[in-house]
């Protein structure tokens, strides 16, 4: 249970780090966060113990391959379904700050549509797909502009340039 071990270590270290931030606070403001951070630290230690105990028990021969397969799948998921889409969203956030919401949205729709189709079958990545992605991005952006800005008059985030 490597994930439990990592979660436990990160929780423990973070709670120590944040606890140190509370030492300069007035007693009344520090009390509740300190209580919560103590709780998090204890949970972190218990998660580490649990992972170490599970590690000591080991995995049976029959389960070993399944265990390796699950770990490889987790790594693949983390990379393709967390890091890449998360990165795309962070790029979109950067665009939001510079060129505003609607252009950033068009970028996000275009890239996520293309990436999704690529993940289903890498062979799908061709000129027709780019065309479909671009049309879809424009349609969705216009639809949002129509609903939020023209119909409801809600302010959309504007960037430094637009």
């Amino acid at each position: 249970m490597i994930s439990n071990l990592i979660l436990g270590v990160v929780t423990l270290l973070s709670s120590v780090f944040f606890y140190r931030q509370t030492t300069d606070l007035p007693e009344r403001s520090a009390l509740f966060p300190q209580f919560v951070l103590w709780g998090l630290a204890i949970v972190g230690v218990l998660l580490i113990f649990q992972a170490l105990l599970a590690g000591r028990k080991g995995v049976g021969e029959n389960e070993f391959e399944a265990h390796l397969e699950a770990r490889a799948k987790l790594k693949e998921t983390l990379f393709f379904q967390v890091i890449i889409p998360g990165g795309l969203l962070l790029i979109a956030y950067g665009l939001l700050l510079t060129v505003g919401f609607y252009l950033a949205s068009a970028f996000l729709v275009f890239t996520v549509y293309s990436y999704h189709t690529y993940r289903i079958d890498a062979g799908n990545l061709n000129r027709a797909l780019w065309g479909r992605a671009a049309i879809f991005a424009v349609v969705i952006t216009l639809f949002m502009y129509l609903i939020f800005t023209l119909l409801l008059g809600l302010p959309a985030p504007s960037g430094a340039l637009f």
Partner: protein
Amino acid sequence: MDIVSILLNLLTPSVFLVVFAGVLVGIVVGAIPGLNGAIGISLLLPLTFTMEPQIGLLLLGGIYMGGMYGGSITAILINVPGDVVAAPVAMEGYPLTKQGRSKEALYYSIFSSMFGGFIGVLILILFTPPLARFALQFGPAEMFFVSLSGLIIVGALSGSILKAAFAVLLGLFISTVGVDLITGSERFTFDSIGLRAGISVVPVVLGLFCFAEMFLNIGKKPGEQVQYRDQKIARMTVIKDILRQRFLVWKSGLIGTLVGLLPGVGTTLAVFMSYGDAKRVSRRDIPFEQGNPDGIIAAESANNATVGSSMVPLLALGVPGSPTSAIIAGALVIHGIVLGPSLFVNRPDVAFTFLYGMLLTVVAMTIIGAVGIKYFSYILKIKMEYIVPTVLVFALFGAYSLRNSLFDVFIAIVLGIAGAIFKKIQVPLAPIIIGLVLGGLIETNLARAMRIAGARNMPLWEYLLATPLSKGLVALVVIMLLVVIRMRHKEKVAAKEAKNG
């Protein structure tokens, strides 16, 4: 507020339009695998900002109600539950589809949802105002115990105890970020202007539920669709059969209602408990998992009963019963409405219109569900490559629009990444939201209790347990906890038995 004014508020074209639109969106969103009512509500949140609060609330209530039913459509037609909650319906509904009886299964689903929905909403109407009146007597000690009970129950019921405790504590920690309103000192802000205002519920929900869910949907292929020749069946035949099983409907509806009342427990437990019970008591000759309608009746009655009852603690005590109701609470902040006992004193128009308006959502769900059956197969044709990017950009806008803050967008993205990781390593997400919402209540009431105890020169615990009401609340929490732990144990045993055939 008298019933005539409530009816006058309700019987307007705009209310009908909003309720029907909300339910329709809820059904569509619920039917699409990977989406659910909570995501639908988060996405449509910005629309409610320009509406009157009670109408906005009814739109969200309609999505909640429709979303609960929508999950059963794909479960029955293609054996892909829109949500985990719809898994028992898939087990009984899909075999019926393979026998050419999908229409019959869908009728069982919608009419059982209707009965369950009515039971939940009736409980909402009957119990919320008296509970709110009673809660007006609550002091800091009682409110502290009520909020704490929500956390304890969430922790006890969400998967691994350690991971649930982590999630609850993380939610509580997030609630402490920002300026402390009592002393004015900044906590964990690192001199960031965005963090000074604290972290609001809506971007957290959008991050943990919308972004994380969409990340994990990327690359998913559409479910295989096979067309079966369907037999004709009259709606009344199904309704009469459900009425013959009225004891099962009431029992499942009440299980859903009771579980829905417990903060943060969620619908899954209610549905599986009712399904397990139906398996035990069903008198039909049809084996379960081979198309026994009793399984659909029980699961769907319980499912929709939780909608109304999960709103009871939110409206009466300000304690959300589910992540969905936490988002609804967040949406009301923009209208300056504070949920809790004072809602019925300060804004009875909003409170009562919503309570009775929820009956309309059940009616709308029944009409759309019963009439729209032939169109449901079209929902299955919507491809994930269109859904994922659309949901992402709508969620970006939703995160921004609550406080017009780009920082909230950033928070939602970061928590989306964290939420996807948490989901993969089986950290439950609902307790984070409940912890975040209840954190403020717990801290404020604890601080008040400490101040009063200090002024009376008595130890804190003595003050907290000074009144019979607070002692009663502690006893109630302990009893509730024991009951739900026992229920969960029974559920586990039933699941193990089912696994072993």
